[in-house]
């Protein structure tokens, strides 16, 4: 763990009984002095650990037949621990003839969500590009920012080639889009919805950049610990059906752009050790892994040097750790990953993260068990062929926001979705004072009504303040999955959402309506 705060230091310094046993143990592979205890009898020396992480990475390349393809692969880079390890593994692979291929780093600046000024964002971008250069000097870097999702046509991108200086060309439209993005976030009611929206827009931006660049693959740095948290978070948000896409090796919801998770089976503990062995400079990562890994890291001679904090309070803090003869520097910084803001908020993700981390302390198998459970829940992880995909989307089988499979239940089935819909319908019907005393709820519940509770789906006509006050509000819901529907309802001003996203939506609504009207004359379901 490299959490650069007092807690982190305490944890790092805290020793326990397992240290001694590790000192006496040897690597299960080569018999050298072990440096890390992974699980049960799995203890490894540094060399074997690095080899195994690299091996896991290459195995994914082989699995998806990416080692032979000539196309450039995008590597998402956030500056956090997992990203750094991923980039290092990518660099390592390029030195092996069979795996040598072209990569580009993609960095999306999200400072806008944390309220950073444009200047601070530019500074952060320079910092990140510097890190990329440090790990993989030859790689070109593409930089964009999250608010660019509002761009109507092509996404403004900055290209930084190795020969260039790390100074980036300022991205155009930053202020205009930034203001709109801030408004959108402010109009979103809950921290959880804000986080979900941010994730949705980020994935949307990834896809659009991929299409724009004509690239088909993106590597993201999701490790086992993060996916375990994601499993519970998705479950808590009603995304049970989307788990195959959210947790599997590959997210194939867009057949033209696959998001691959090469570190799906690598734990945070392995990544921290990998970084401390491979990279001299470890870039501060705010997300803390589970306590167990901390204890293994605590087998160190710890030197803590705090330099003057001339920049942001955390940015100047540096932790130097001598770990079995390897000197590692942990820079505290504001360039951490998304959870930096998630941490502060009471979102479902941050609650889950705390829960899983504390559980992992007492039950060391938690993350691995969750990952194994996740694997068993991935029944539909294979990608759809492009033709079929577009049909499914237009015929309403895929959610038009997140592109995950639709999980709407049959109208009269006994499901959680219908049960909550009934509660909301009844709730909407309560204040109807047009009928003398009150609505007869019984008749109301048994008759078929729209989602909002009005008989024809247009409650605005009835009392002027129903949930269907505008057409825009009503239409997209038909084409959204359970969880996205909830998210949309949390967005106060839906007019602030990117037009492109909403346009696609209304197009799909029209196509779905056309399809319904000619349904009886279609000979093939898949047309």
């Amino acid at each position, binding site marked *: 763990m490299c959490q650069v705060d007092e807690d982190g230091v305490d944890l790092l310094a805290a020793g326990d009984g397992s240290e001694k046993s590790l000192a006496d143990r040897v690597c299960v592979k080569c018999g050298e002095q072990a440096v890390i205890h992974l699980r049960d009898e799995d203890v490894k020396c540094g060399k074997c650990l690095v080899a195994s992480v690299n091996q896991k990475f290459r195995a994914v390349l082989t699995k998806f037949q990416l080692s032979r393809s000539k196309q450039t692969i995008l590597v998402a880079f956030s500056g956090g621990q997992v990203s750094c390890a991923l980039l290092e593994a990518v660099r390592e692979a390029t030195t092996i003839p069979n795996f040598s291929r072209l990569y580009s780093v993609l960095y999306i600046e999200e400072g806008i969500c944390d309220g950073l000024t444009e200047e601070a964002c530019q500074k952060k971008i320079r910092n990140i590009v510097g890190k990329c250069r440090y790990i993989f000097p030859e790689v070109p870097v593409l930089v964009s920012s999250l608010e660019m999702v509002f761009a109507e046509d092509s996404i403004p991108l900055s290209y930084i080639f190795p020969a260039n200086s790390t100074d980036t060309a300022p991205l155009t439209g930053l202020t205009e889009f930034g203001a709109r993005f801030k408004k959108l976030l402010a109009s979103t009611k809950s921290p959880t919805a804000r986080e979900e929206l941010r994730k949705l827009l980020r994935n949307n931006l990834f896809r659009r950049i991929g299409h724009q660049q004509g690239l088909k693959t993106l590597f993201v740095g999701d490790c086992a610990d993060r996916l375990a948290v994601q499993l519970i978070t998705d479950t808590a*948000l*009603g995304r049970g*059906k989307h788990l195959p896409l959210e947790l599997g090796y590959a997210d194939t919801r867009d057949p033209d752009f696959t998001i691959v998770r090469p570190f799906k089976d690598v734990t945070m503990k392995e990544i921290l050790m990998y970084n401390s062995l491979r990279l001299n400079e470890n870039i501060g990562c705010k997300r803390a892994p589970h306590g167990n890994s901390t204890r293994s890291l605590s087998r160190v001679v710890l030197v803590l040097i705090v330099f003057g904090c001339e920049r942001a309070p955390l940015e100047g803090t540096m932790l130097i750790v001598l770990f079995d003869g390897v000197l590692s520097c942990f820079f505290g910084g504001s360039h951490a990953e998304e959870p930096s803001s998630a941490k502060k908020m009471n979102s479902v993700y941050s609650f889950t993260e705390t829960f899983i981390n504390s559980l992992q302390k007492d039950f060391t198998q*938690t993350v691995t*068990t969750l990952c194994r459970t996740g694997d068993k829940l991935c029944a539909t992880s294979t990608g759809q062929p492009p033709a079929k995909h577009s049909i499914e989307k237009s015929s309403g089988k895929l959610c038009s926001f997140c592109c995950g499979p639709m999980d709407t239940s049959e109208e009269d089935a006994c499901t*959680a979705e219908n049960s909550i819909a009934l509660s909301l319908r*009844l709730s909407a019907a309560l204040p109807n004072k047009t009928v003398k005393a009150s609505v007869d709820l019984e008749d109301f519940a048994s008759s078929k009504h729209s989602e909002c509770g009005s008989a024809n789906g247009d409650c605005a006509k009835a009392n002027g303040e129903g949930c269907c006050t505008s057409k825009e509000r009503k239409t997209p819901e038909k084409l959204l999955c359970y969880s996205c529907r909830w998210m949309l309802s949390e967005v106060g001003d839906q007019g602030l959402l990117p037009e492109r996203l909403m346009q696609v939506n209304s197009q799909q609504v029209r196509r779905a309506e056309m399809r319904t009207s000619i349904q009886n004359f279609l000979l093939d379901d898949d047309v």
Partner: protein
Amino acid sequence: MPFLCKRCSRKAILKRPKTGDTLCKECFFELFELEIHETIICAKLFKPGLKVAVGASGGKDSTVLAHVMKVLNEKYHYGIHLTLLSVDEGITGYRDDSLETVKRNEQQYELPLKIVSYKDLYGWSMDDIVKQIGLKNNCTFCGVFRRQALDRGATMTAVDMILTGHNADDIAETVLMNLLRGDIARLSRCTAIITGAEGSLPRAKPLKYAYEKEIVMYAYFKKLDYFSTECVYSPNAYRGYARTFLKDLESIRPRCIIDIIHSGENFAIKSSVKMAAQGSCSRCGFISSQEVCKACILLDGLNRGLPRLTTGKMKKAHRSFAQNNKQENGEVTSPAD
């Protein structure tokens, strides 16, 4: 300013956890009962003439269930014959008190009550079991025996279905627990409203979409007579983690409970994953996913004085059971060495 009921504009006394509406007592009762009725109708739980036993522990969930079932059966003319079925685990200071509550409910709701006890069914009360094995793993015995005891009791009273008081929070918690434990077989069936393999008695959970908080509110404002004390033997620690987590989630996002159930209903389980099919025990004939059910294995361990062996790895327990069976030709023996 006093809050007004969103429906009838009388003085509101509560805020409904599910929707946030302010309601008066009567409107809340009506909504709560109506939603349970809708669940029953949607799931097509009953046919007229069905004999249904409500698993009654004396706690809030089963007391509310018994009350609501009686009300709905009269109001909507389901035409079912309701009875109460209780299990006496033999825990002094806990079950004896809660059974008194159930006995009062029998009078209040005018429903016939049947009590089956561990002591009669298995020859061991929970107090005896704890004396033998201590406070570790005792919940394993209690849980396994209770499931079967309900089935046995239902067979004795010749009912067609058992209703249990599991609420939405319980189901969401079970989904989380099964994810954390990696128990795919249970994960796939824990959200079903009716469970039970073919040939065995079906069990249904009419309160599966009712929030625990609303159940407490219903019981509180209806002034129902129920018993609320934790079991005197240690509660399940691991489940405690999941429960606390769920309560935390609920505090920031009340919808989480229903959303977790929705996820549970939509999990896509790989066809290649091996899952134990539910059948019946070759020894006692009650529901089991193995050849011999866990209750028989545990009971065998208790009778042989080796209860710890049977709470560990199932493979070991089955091997030990088979060996003993061979030696003793299926007869229960005195403690083996």
